[in-house]
């Protein structure tokens, strides 16, 4: 597959980075919305390639991170029930609830399974008619079509033992909330390419216009990210505030209209609590009235959950971009990927975990100095 090499070409990356250095005359703060982009920036060291004044702020775009603790506690309670097969994407398994995580539920006898698609969970329901199969459907607009399809198929085929524990969140209201928050520092956004592959970017021009900020639809490979940053900086330097598409090989203005039609049928807009941020009006989707019978929250009526967040955890400040992970006093001390206090440390896409995993607990100079003698010695 060419994308594995073409969009990771070190020489081209250096060329784009040089261009950013030439264009940037002032400091700018740019937020990448999506956790996948945060992961890629840190993994590839893209932030190390930027001029000192260009700061990437890691936004609230990790679905695992922003899923409210209460919903995770509900998931744990449902997964522990006898007769339930609880299906989830892999990275939700280690997210700690107030008392335990899905791994612990599994080791205590709960039937917890990692699946790659909610449609696999529907098939499990067909194969296990005497069991209740629940899929934990969290995520942004990206994962929503497959979740929508799962209940759509379940309804069409009359599958009664499948349900969705669903908490979808939406990017545009989050950007509006960030821009409207007091003390906001963000001056431009890299829009999440995969979200836009579904939704297009027709929702964004009014936001760019209202807040006078450039918004650049951006992909996930190193060259995609550098190009997105380059375009955002060029706009900022020129005083422009347009919606620009730097991910044309995937994203169109209108997006995937078939998916959007299905989403409109299966889901309805609702207020959503974002972990660490709070309730953002009209920022999520829940199952619409026609599909409410597939809502696991309705089906299982979980009560008696006592949710408690760690008082030390500042993941909310991290998600809003007001502090870097290492500025939290618990970072790397009480809070590590092994003992995460908050979800930003749990998911590999979470900003705290990305910083921890890729060694951002040592100084930038130390990291930059490491491996100095490497390139000469190594041969393929």
């Amino acid at each position, binding site marked *: *597959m060419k994308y*594995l090499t073409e969009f*990771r*070409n*070190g020489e081209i*990356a*250096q060329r784009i980075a040089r261009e950013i250095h030439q264009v940037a005359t002032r400091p700018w703060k740019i937020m990448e919305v999506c956790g*996948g982009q945060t*992961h890629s920036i*840190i*993994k*590839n*060291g*893209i932030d*190390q*390639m930027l001029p000192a004044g260009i700061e990437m702020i890691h936004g609230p775009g990790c*679905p*695992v991170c922003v899923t409210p603790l209460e919903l995770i506690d509900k998931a744990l309670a449902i997964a522990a029930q006898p007769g339930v097969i609880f299906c989830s*994407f*892999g*990275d*939700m*398994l*280690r997210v700690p609830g107030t008392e335990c995580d899905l*791994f612990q539920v599994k080791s205590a006898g709960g039937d917890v*399974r*990692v*699946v*790659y698609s909610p449609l*696999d969970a529907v098939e499990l329901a067909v194969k296990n008619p005497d069991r209740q199969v629940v899929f934990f459907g*969290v*995520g*942004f607009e*990206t*994962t929503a079509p497959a979740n929508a399809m799962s209940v759509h198929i379940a309804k069409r085929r009359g599958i009664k033992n499948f349900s969705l524990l669903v908490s979808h969140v939406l990017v545009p209201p989050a950007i509006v909330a960030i821009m409207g928050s007091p003390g906001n520092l963000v001056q431009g956004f890299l829009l999440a390419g*995969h979200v836009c592959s579904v939704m297009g970017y027709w929702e964004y021009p009014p936001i760019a216009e209202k807040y006078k900020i450039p918004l650049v639809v951006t992909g996930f490979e*190193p060259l995609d990210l550098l190009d997105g940053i380059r375009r955002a900086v060029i706009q900022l330097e020129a005083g422009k505030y347009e919606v620009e598409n730097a991910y044309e090989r995937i994203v169109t203005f209108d997006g995937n209209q078939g998916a959007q039609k299905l989403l409109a049928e299966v889901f309805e807009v609702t207020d959503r609590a974002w972990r660490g941020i709070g309730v953002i009006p009209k920022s999520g989707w829940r199952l619409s009235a026609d599909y409410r019978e597939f809502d696991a929250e309705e089906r299982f009526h979980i009560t008696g959950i006592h949710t408690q967040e760690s008082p030390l955890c500042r993941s909310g400040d991290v998600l809003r971009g007001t502090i870097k992970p290492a500025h939290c006093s618990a970072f790397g001390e009480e809070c590590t*990927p*092994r003992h995460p206090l908050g979800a930003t440390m749990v*998911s*590999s*896409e979470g900003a705290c975990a990305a910083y*921890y*995993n*890729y*060694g951002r607990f*040592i100084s930038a100079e*130390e*990291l*930059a*100095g*490491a*491996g100095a*003698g*490497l*390139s000469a*010695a*190594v*041969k*393929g």
Partner: protein
Amino acid sequence: MTEASRAVPDFSNWSCPLPLVGYPSIVMGHGGGGKLGNELVEHLFLPAFRNPALENLGDAAVLDLPAGKLAMSTDSFVVRPLFFPGGSIGELAVNGTVNDLAVSGAEPKYLSASFILEEGFPLAQLAAIVEAMAAAAKTAGIQIVTGDTKVVERGHGDGCYINTAGIGALRPGIQVGPHRAQAGDAILVSGTIGDHGMAIMSVREGLEFESQITSDCAALNGIIADVLAAAGNSIHAMRDPTRGGLASTLNEIALASSVGIEIDEASMPVRTQVQSACELLGLDPVYVANEGKAVFFVAPEAAEQVLAVLRAHPLGREAARIGQVTAQHPRMLVARTAMGANRVIPIQIGEQLPRIC
């Protein structure tokens, strides 16, 4: 005879008046030490593994070993599924222990093999596993000299678990160990990384995806013998990066030797198919298991020679020099990314988990 028992390849010269014909699968009696258990030994294990030490069928094998130090290692195998592209639990059980001995600088000689079988496990599958073990032992040039079989009730095991333990003769004069890596050492890997883990992943229930990825499962004692013969004194540490992948092995050596390790991501050999599958599943090949690869920490002046020896061996054609040991950032593994930036590769906590999107 039932259809199922006819399919068992190792029962062709069955002679017992009360053979397993009624039992195409494992029953509790196969682990009971009585007639059924003896039949497994007589008709399956013994013909497959045949050697003088085993044939005595005593309570312990009596072995000839050269004078000098011995190395001993043990490992249990619980892989699922039992059969996967490129191998089975049988090859793994032999090669895994052979490789642990080989990377310790020993010449592997003898193995034990213990089976924990689940009631109902098809004998045809057991026979296939035993055949695979026998073939792997032959390839590795070792003998399986003692063993045991236990049966657990249905639902108490995944069909078949195997434990092997092995003894090898330590080569005189060879001093390797995870604590012996030195600043300046070149780091060589004997071939592509991540093949075994992704081969398993491709057939694991619920995650199946189409691919031509096969496990790299292989005995490394041959290629390691070549390396040690050519440059034994220049090899400071060797390891086979199995569970936890290359990243875990390099981190372990960085910790044990209290040195820093630098690797160049672009120089790491990864098959395109493995890289693609990893991308798809949100995994990093440096953490994915290998079962037929070795990492060598080599004095820099011997690095090119060792690389040439590796590449001359059938198992080492894609060997590469991927990095070096440094006195900087002790106990830390740092990778130079393709972008020219650096990142720390930490020890993985638990299993790698596929990401949501």
